[in-house]
């Protein structure tokens, strides 16, 4: 296994598929359709497309280079790329992803629970709100599923790149086939055209609406994955001659393509089956959990062929979530392996940390909401760290030396340097500030660090994570020893690139 891992991915396509599997998660299936439908449909999709190309792609290209050149998990990657004193940037990213992996495992457990309920028709003829409340709060089966999800993620992560490749060979095709089945059924329902109109109609005047731009950007960033450490970590195992530009672009296009199929599966179903147009609108505005676990289950119960479609829907959701969770696990465990810990020990240690951190989320949906809010904001901070690393190293050097290397299938133009230095950080910063200001109005005491989704809790938890990682910066930096692909770096970072 160790030798297999040293050889990295079996092919460039396997790398691209692993990147897609990491990116595609619940956000593509339960968030994209409803956000697109409630924010201008076709106009939103145009804006989201622009954001994917000019914000997400440039950052992810940069992150691919950081992972490829350093051959380390996120702390070691930042250390080797821009210097020892910046190691904390990478360890902050790893800490955020530990937070994500902990609560996201609980989300995967909900989805697994609902797949079981779909199979047994367990949510038929019952109050859907009460059902979701009972699944997401104080439910021992949910907790057991959470432990099982963690164990599966840990095991596949332990098997390394080869194991992930094998898992994705099942997860991705099943996910896609299930979504396509659900989409075909949705668009052939009588009245589905109302939903399709709502999802795709383009109104150029709406391009002046700033809210659509911010929502488009939010969806692009929270779905594709810049700032998560995902690309940095998976690129560690890429082959020396694999194509950074093509594999990253495939990741972005693949992520977007899955979102569009999910949109075709969800929105026409809602508009075709809701009793009135207003009722359909209400469903799209009911939030991620409300849409998936309450409204969609109501529709599955009444629609012709709903049993099969519900199985396809929840199975695709489960595989999307699980494949992302495995990638999250990998992001958190790799720094431990870098520190010289045996892989088995590292995986067990991470599993225990995530078990303790995630149990409150598995038991209580309010705690999970808090973690989701803080992690979502901190991912934006992570994206800013990546932009800074590229700026510090030199965007021109990165583009000329690493992106446009002799093995690439297509060259990246100078636009990338402008995007990574100016557009991406500026736009991400605006988004971070916008959500922060928005959150002031969500709860009475916006400053309260013990709030659920307010500014106070984000600032308190974010500051704590950053502070602890700054304090332990040197210790973490010195702990990074193990390196993948010794002797097969491409191209190596010259020694004089380090600032200290």
């Amino acid at each position, binding site marked *: 296994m160790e030798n297999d891992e040293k050889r990295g991915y079996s*092919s*460039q*396509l396997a790398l*691209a598929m692993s990147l897609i599997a990491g990116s595609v998660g619940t956000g593509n299936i339960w968030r994209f359709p409803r956000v697109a439908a409630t924010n201008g*449909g*076709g106009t939103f*999709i*145009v804006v989201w*497309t622009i954001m994917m190309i000019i914000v997400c792609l440039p950052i992810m290209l940069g992150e691919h280079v950081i992972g490829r050149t350093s051959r380390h998990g996120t702390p070691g990657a930042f250390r080797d790329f821009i210097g020892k004193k910046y190691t904390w940037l990478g360890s902050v990213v790893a800490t955020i992803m530990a937070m994500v992996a902990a609560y996201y495992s609980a989300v995967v457990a909900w989805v697994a629970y609902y797949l079981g309920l779909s199979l047994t028709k367990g949510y038929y003829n019952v109050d859907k709100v009460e059902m979701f409340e009972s699944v997401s709060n104080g439910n021992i089966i949910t907790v057991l599923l959470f432990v099982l999800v963690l164990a599966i993620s840990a095991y596949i992560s332990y098997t390394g790149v080869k194991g992930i490749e094998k898992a994705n060979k099942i997860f991705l095709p099943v996910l896609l086939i299930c979504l396509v089945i659900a989409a075909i059924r949705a668009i052939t329902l009588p009245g589905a*055209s109302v939903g*399709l*109109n709502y*999802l*795709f*109609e*383009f109104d150029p005047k709406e391009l002046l609406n700033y809210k659509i731009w911010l929502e488009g950007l939010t969806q692009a960033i929270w779905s594709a994955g810049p700032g998560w450490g995902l690309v940095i970590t998976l690129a560690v195992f890429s082959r020396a*001659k694999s*194509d950074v530009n*093509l*594999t990253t*672009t*495939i990741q972005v*296009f*693949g992520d*977007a*393509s899955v979102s*569009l199929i999910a949109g075709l599966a969800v929105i026409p179903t809602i508009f075709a089956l809701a009793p009135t147009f207003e009722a359909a609108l209400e469903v799209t505005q009911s939030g991620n959990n409300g849409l998936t676990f309450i409204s969609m289950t109501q529709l599955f119960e009444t629609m012709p062929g709903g049993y099969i479609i519900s199985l396809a829907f929840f199975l695709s959701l489960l595989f999307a979530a699980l494949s992302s969770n495995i990638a999250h696990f990998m992001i958190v465990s790799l720094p431990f392996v870098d520190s010289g810990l045996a892989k088995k020990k590292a995986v067990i240690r991470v599993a225990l940390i995530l078990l303790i951190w995630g149990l409150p989320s598995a038991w209580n949906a309010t705690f999970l909401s808090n973690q989701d809010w803080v992690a979502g904001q901190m991912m934006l901070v992570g994206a800013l760290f990546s932009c800074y690393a590229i700026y510090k190293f030199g965007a021109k050097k990165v583009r000329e030396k690493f992106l446009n290397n002799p*093995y690439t*299938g*297509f060259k990246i133009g100078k636009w990338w340097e402008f995007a990574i230095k100016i557009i991406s950080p500026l736009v991400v910063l605006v988004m971070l500030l916008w959500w922060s200001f928005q959150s002031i109005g969500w709860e009475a005491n916006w400053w309260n660090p013990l709030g659920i989704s307010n500014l106070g809790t984000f600032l308190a938890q974010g500051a704590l994570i950053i502070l602890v990682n700054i304090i332990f910066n040197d210790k973490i930096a010195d702990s990074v020893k193990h390196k993948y692909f010794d002797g097969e770096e491409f191209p190596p970072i010259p020694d004089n690139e380090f600032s200290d």
Partner: protein
Amino acid sequence: MSTNAIIMMVLILTFFWGGFLAFIIKLQKISKNQ
């Protein structure tokens, strides 16, 4: 379904799915040549 929505749907699906498949074909070609 309105013409506006049909055009938009076709354009956006072609852009992302077409791009996705075209890039994969290109990647496979490069891989073979290496």
